[in-house]
């Protein structure tokens, strides 16, 4: 065994991870990247040779959000394989966990990017708050927008983690007084061309970050530009966000059979029936949650008994709330799910008004003796009669 191999084996052992776990993990990364089984050894050796020998400069920037994505990443600090990959990032700035404070911290942020121009990776968590000239969120005594303005053009790529960074997430839900938006939208407004990889859901799943780190850095797909071809029109990796949850849901059989949970606490719920009638947004949400699952592949929303609330969707709160209902309320233009009217009630009301109007009209027809009895047809058009013309 070569020295590095032994060193890597020790790293794995220190995390309580077997070689088998590691290869299996590389297999799931390969699947998420759309690579064939034959690429698994390539991924494994890329991780192996990078681990412990190479560090990629990276910064983790927090916008306006709840830090839930950081929490979600903390799941990956449980000794597991993901940390092997994440450790190759030299995370020089990460507000929540770094030791540095004040001016030192901000210097670390700027130095990392400036000293590695075009090479550093920025992971952005949280929404971009534009409200009140950017003063809706201030970092280090400045509007936080300054970080993106200054550094976004200089990093190799931005990985927008979590729905907030993708399009504003729950922060953007009406009335959105902070004028929150997503990283790619903000960069587009500013004409900054740095590639953005969007990884929605609330919070982000760390496995996807790992897959992107492998793809972008270890397999060199950012340099070659191949990564861009793997993103959909919304900047999401197609292989992770290309299928609906419903397509891969283990309860799908119940859906097709029409076996639904109509009420929590019911026997149907105990039987693990489909949650569609409880407002499950799985059919209209595209992520691979049922395959990758959460918390070290322990479980995921539907498996643990909750309908998918569609957190991987765009503008997911406004479009998905009330989460236990089949349809959201509508208040056209305002973007708010508060107030508004239920689409079902509105549709039935229109149909009802038409039917009622016809009923009233029929009474009129009866009163004028027309019901079942068409009146005589005029023998000359009104227009022609007024013109004084003959017929």
């Amino acid at each position, binding site marked *: 065994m070569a020295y590095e191999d032994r060193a890597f084996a020790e790293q794995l052992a220190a995390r309580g991870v077997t070689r088998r776990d590691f290869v299996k993990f590389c297999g799931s990364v390969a699947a998420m990247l759309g690579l064939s089984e034959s690429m698994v050894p390539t991924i494994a050796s890329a991780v192996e040779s990078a681990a412990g020998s190479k560090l990629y400069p990276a910064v983790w920037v927090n916008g306006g959000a709840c830090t839930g994505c950081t929490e979600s990443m903390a799941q990956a600090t449980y000794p597991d394989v993901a940390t092997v990959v994440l450790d190759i990032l030299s995370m020089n700035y990460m507000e929540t966990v770094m030791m540095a404070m004040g001016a030192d911290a901000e210097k670390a942020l700027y130095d990392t990017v400036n000293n590695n121009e075009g090479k550093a990776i920025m992971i952005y968590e949280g929404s971009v708050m534009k409200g009140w000239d950017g003063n809706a969120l201030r970092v280090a005594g400045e509007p936080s927008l300054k970080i993106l303005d200054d550094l976004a053009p200089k990093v190799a790529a931005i990985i927008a983690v979590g729905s907030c960074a993708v399009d*504003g997430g729950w922060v953007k839900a009406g009335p959105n007084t902070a004028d929150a938006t997503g990283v790619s939208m903000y960069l587009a407004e500013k004409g900054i061309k740095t590639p953005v990889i969007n990884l929605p859901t609330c919070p982000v799943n760390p496995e996807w970050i790992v897959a992107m780190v492998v793809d972008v850095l270890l397999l060199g797909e950012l340099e070659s530009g191949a990564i861009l071809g793997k993103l959909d029109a919304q900047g999401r990796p197609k292989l992770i966000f290309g299928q609906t949850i419903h397509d891969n849901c283990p309860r799908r059989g119940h859906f097709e059979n*029409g076996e639904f949970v109509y009420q929590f606490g019911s026997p149907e719920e105990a039987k693990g029936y489909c949650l569609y009638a409880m407002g499950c947004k799985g059919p209209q949400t595209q992520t691979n949650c049922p395959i990758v699952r959460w918390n070290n592949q322990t479980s995921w929303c539907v498996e643990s008994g909750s309908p998918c609330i569609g957190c991987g969707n765009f503008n997911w709160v406004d479009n998905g709330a009330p989460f236990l209902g089949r349809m959201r309320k509508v208040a056209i233009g305002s*973007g708010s799910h508060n107030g508004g009217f239920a689409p079902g009630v509105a*549709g039935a009301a229109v149909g009802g008004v*038409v*039917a009622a109007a016809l009923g009233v009209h029929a009474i009129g027809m009866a009163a004028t003796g027309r019901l079942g009895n068409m009146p005589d047809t*005029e023998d000359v058009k009104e227009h022609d009669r007024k013109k004084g013309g003959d017929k």
Partner: protein
Amino acid sequence: MSHAYTREMHPLAFVVSHWTNLCAMVFLTLSGLYIHYPIFPGFMGAARGTHNFWMFVLLINLVVRLVMGFTLKTSKLAGGREKELDIKNFLPQAENRHQLWPTIKYYLFLKKEHPLGGKYNSLQKFAYVLTVPLILLAAYTGFALWGPTSQWSFFLAGTTMVANWFNGGVGGAALMPMRIVHYWTMWAILSFTFIHVYLANIYGFDADRIMFAWKETGTDHA
């Protein structure tokens, strides 16, 4: 009693396409409502299969009906036998000129005599022509929701546009607003159908006899 109904007004092919439309509407509405909310258990696979099947039937029937409109000849006056190209009955005709307002007045009880017109009155022409964009809208919004086609950029563009309207310009490519528009389209088609059924039967059931059974009424052949 109303005017006579001749076979020249509605050739047999129209009887078939009208039946097809009726069946498609009924099956699509019922299965669609079930998919919207499965009020009782047991039928989701069947409802989706039904919805899919009749969607294709309705679309093919629409194309066939349009082609027939441009190729078949039908009578141009109610109760008449003199024929011209069918599509002309849906366009402005000399028989209907200046008759829109009198027709409206007639139905608002502001005019006693039935206005002169072609086979269809001015309001009917509008209503019947409107069914074409309505069906196309139902199909477009439906395809935008349907798994195999929802990611086609032609449909994705509409999905994003609708989501943006619903959310003051920040909708993203979320399907929920499209789902709602698709659902409302059903109510629009239902409303048309209510009015259509009402007006077709207000003077009696002779129109049904020709449309469903191809039986003439009020003519020498009857």
